C-alpha cells in the first residue's frame, strides 16, 4: 500500500458517471437518428417556439402592413393600396427580400417623394445599391430619401468618387445616376448567387410562418378562450406544458396548419383519453358490459342445466314409482295375501288380510283404518275398552318387602330358619327343579274370564295358522 500526495488532481468522473454519460450520449444520438428517420425535425419545445414565432411574425407583418396602409392613406394614395400590396408581393418574390423589409423602405421613400412611380423606381434602385454596396436596404432607402431632400451626407458611404461639394452641388437625379451606373448589374449578379436562392427560401418560410401564425392565432386563441394574440400565446404555453415530448412534423403550408389544427383536439384531450367521450371510460364501460354479458350467459346456462336436471330427476322418480308398482305384482307375500282375499274368508279375516297387505304396501292410512276397524270388531260394544281403561291400579307386590326382610333378619341363622318348600336357609338345596313354564312357541290354552264368565279363549301359538288374537308378551297389550 503506497501513500500518495496528488498534485494538480482533476475530477474526471467515476466510472458510473462515465457510463451514464455514455448512455446519455448514445440516447441522444439514437433519438436524433430516429427523428431523422421519421422525418420529424422539431421537438415539442421547438414546436412551441415555432408556434409562438409564427404568431408573432404574423402580428408584426400585420402591423407593418397597417402602418404602410395608414401612411398611404394619409398621403392621399388610398386608391393605390391594392397596387402597392401587389407590387410589394411581386418584389418580394422576385428579389427575395421579405416584405417586412420592403414595406418600411417603400414607406420612407413614399413619404419623402410623395410620388408613387418615383417610389417604385427608387425602391428598385435601392435594392440594386444595397446588393452592390452591401449596405442594408433600410439604410439605403433612408439615404436616398435624405438625398432626395438634399441631405447628401449618407451618400458618402457608397464611394461614388464624388466629393462632398460635388454631392451637394449635383442634383439628386445626377447622384442617383452615378450610383446606378456604379452598381449596375449588381442586382442581376446577385440573382444568380446561392445567397439569393437562400433568400427566396427564407422569404417563403417567413411567409408560411405568417400564414400559419394567422391561423394559429385564431385556433389557439379559441383554445385559450379568447380572441387576441396574447390568448393564443398563452394557450400555446399551456398546451406545451400539458403535452410533454410530443413531436410533430411542421408543414410550411396552410395544409400543414390544417393538420396541426386537427391534432389540437387530440392534444387537448391527451390523446383522446379525456374529454366528453374519454377512451379510458369507454374501455371500462366495454369491459363491464362484456363481463355482465358473460355472467348472464353463465347464469342462463346454469338455469338450463338445473331445469334439465330437475326434469330428469322427476322422470326418474316416476320411473321408479312405476317400477315399484310393477314389481309389486311379483311380490310373493302380496300374491298370497291377494289369493287369500279371493278365498272364503269372513269379513273380519278379510280385514286382517287387507291390513297385512296394507302394511306390506306401506299404505299407512289404510293400515291405520283397518286396525281401528279390527279393534272395534273385537270389542264391538266398547265394554272391553272401557273396562281396560277403568281397571284399578295393580297392587305393588313388593309393598311388604321391607317387613319380609326384617322378619328374615330376626330369625337366627342357625337352627330353624325360613323354609322355602321344605328347604331351610343355610341348608344345601337338594335337586332344585324350577317349575316348568312351557317352551317358547309351544301351544298353550289362553282363557279370558270376567266375573267368572269366559269371554275369550284361544290356542296361543307363534304361527299364523291358529287364531290371530294374541297377547303381546312384551308390551302387555291385547290385540
Amino acid at each position: 500500500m503506497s501513500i500518495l500526495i496528488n498534485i494538480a488532481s482533476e475530477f474526471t468522473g467515476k466510472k458510473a458517471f462515465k457510463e451514464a454519460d455514455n448512455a446519455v450520449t448514445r440516447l441522444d444520438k439514437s433519438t436524433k437518428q430516429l427523428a431523422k428517420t421519421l422525418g420529424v425535425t422539431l421537438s415539442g419545445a421547438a414546436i412551441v417556439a415555432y408556434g409562438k414565432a409564427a404568431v408573432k411574425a404574423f402580428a408584426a407583418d400585420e402591423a407593418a402592413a397597417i402602418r404602410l396602409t395608414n401612411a398611404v392613406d394619409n398621403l392621399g394614395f388610398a386608391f393605390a393600396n391594392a397596387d402597392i400590396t401587389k407590387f410589394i408581393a411581386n418584389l418580394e418574390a422576385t428579389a427575395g427580400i421579405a416584405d417586412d423589409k420592403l414595406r418600411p423602405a417603400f414607406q420612407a421613400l413614399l413619404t419623402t417623394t410623395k410620388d408613387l412611380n418615383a417610389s417604385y423606381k427608387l425602391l428598385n434602385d435601392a435594392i440594386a445599391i444595397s446588393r452592390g454596396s452591401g449596405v442594408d436596404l433600410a439604410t439605403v432607402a433612408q439615404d436616398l430619401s435624405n438625398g432626395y431632400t438634399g441631405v447628401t451626407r449618407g451618400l458618402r458611404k457608397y464611394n461614388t468618387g464624388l466629393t462632398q461639394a460635388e454631392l451637394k452641388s449635383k442634383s439628386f437625379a445626377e447622384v442617383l445616376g452615378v450610383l446606378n451606373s456604379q452598381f449596375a448589374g449588381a442586382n442581376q449578379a446577385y440573382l444568380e448567387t446561392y445567397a439569393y436562392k437562400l433568400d427566396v427560401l427564407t422569404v417563403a418560410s417567413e411567409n408560411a410562418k405568417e400564414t400559419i401564425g394567422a391561423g394559429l392565432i385564431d385556433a389557439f386563441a379559441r383554445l385559450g378562450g379568447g380572441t387576441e394574440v396574447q390568448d393564443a400565446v398563452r394557450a400555446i404555453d399551456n398546451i406545451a406544458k400539458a403535452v410533454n415530448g410530443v413531436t410533430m412534423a411542421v408543414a410550411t403550408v396552410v395544409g400543414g396548419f390544417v393538420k396541426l389544427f386537427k391534432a389540437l383536439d387530440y392534444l387537448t384531450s391527451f390523446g383522446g383519453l379525456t374529454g366528453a367521450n374519454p377512451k379510458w371510460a369507454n374501455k371500462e364501460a366495454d369491459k363491464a358490459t362484456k363481463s355482465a354479458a358473460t355472467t348472464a350467459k353463465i347464469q342462463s346456462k346454469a338455469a338450463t342445466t338445473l331445469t334439465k336436471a330437475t326434469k330428469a330427476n322427476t322422470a326418474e322418480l316416476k320411473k321408479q314409482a312405476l317400477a315399484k308398482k310393477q314389481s309389486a305384482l311379483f311380490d310373493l307375500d302380496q300374491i298370497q295375501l291377494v289369493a287369500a282375499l279371493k278365498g272364503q274368508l269372513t269379513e273380519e279375516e278379510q280385514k286382517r288380510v287387507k291390513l297385512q297387505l296394507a302394511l306390506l304396501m306401506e299404505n299407512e292410512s289404510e293400515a291405520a283404518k283397518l286396525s281401528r276397524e279390527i279393534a272395534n270388531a273385537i270389542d264391538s260394544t266398547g265394554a272391553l275398552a272401557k273396562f281396560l281403561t277403568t281397571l284399578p291400579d295393580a297392587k305393588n307386590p313388593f309393598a311388604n318387602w321391607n317387613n319380609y326382610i326384617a322378619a328374615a333378619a330376626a330369625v337366627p341363622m342357625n337352627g330353624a330358619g325360613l323354609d322355602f318348600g321344605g328347604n331351610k336357609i343355610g341348608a344345601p338345596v337338594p335337586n332344585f327343579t324350577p317349575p316348568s313354564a312351557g317352551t317358547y312357541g309351544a301351544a298353550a290354552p289362553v282363557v279370558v274370564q270376567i266375573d267368572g264368565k269366559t269371554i275369550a279363549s284361544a290356542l296361543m301359538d307363534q304361527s299364523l295358522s291358529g287364531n290371530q288374537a294374541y297377547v303381546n308378551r312384551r308390551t302387555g297389550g291385547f290385540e
Partner: protein
Amino acid sequence: MPTEVRGAIALRKALRQFEPDLAKETTKEIASFLKPVVKNARGFLPSNEEVPSGWVKRPNQGGRWANRSYDATEARRGVSFKSTPSKPNRNGFRSLATIFNKSAAGAIYETAGRKSGITGRFTPHLGGQLKGKGQKGTGRVIFRAVDEDQGKAKAHIIKAIEKAAEKLNSRSKAL
C-alpha cells in the same frame, strides 16, 4: 497539498497530440519542481540504527514481518514522484503529478501514531516529526517534506501547466 485543477489532463492530452515537445518540456519542468521535495523526504527516513532494532530487516527473515521490516535503502527507494497523469482513483480523481511512499516500512514510518498518538512501545522510539494538515495529511516523510516546502512546488507546477497552456494556445493561433 492536493489541488484540484480543471483541464490539466486534457491539456496534457492536447500537448501530446499537437505539441509533443512542449509536453515533454512540461513534464520535465514538473519533475524539476518535485525532485527537491522528494530528496528532502528521503532525508527524513532514519537509518537502520535509528529505528527499533527488532524492526530492522534480518537476512532470511520469515513470517508476516518479512515484508514489513525496515531497511533504510529500501525505504528510500520507495519514496519517489511521478510527473505523468495517474489512473482515476475510486473517487474519480486523476492527478497530473504525484509524490508517493511506496514501501511498507516507509509507510509504517510515515504514518505510525498519527491516529492513536505517540503511545505504546514502538511509536515513541521511531523518532521523526509528524507534520502536515489533518490526520490523513500528516506524516514523517513525504507529508513532512511537502509541509516544509510550504506549497512552493505546487505553485510552480500549476504555473508550469498554465505556461504550457498559453504556449499551446499561442502556437495554435499562429497557425
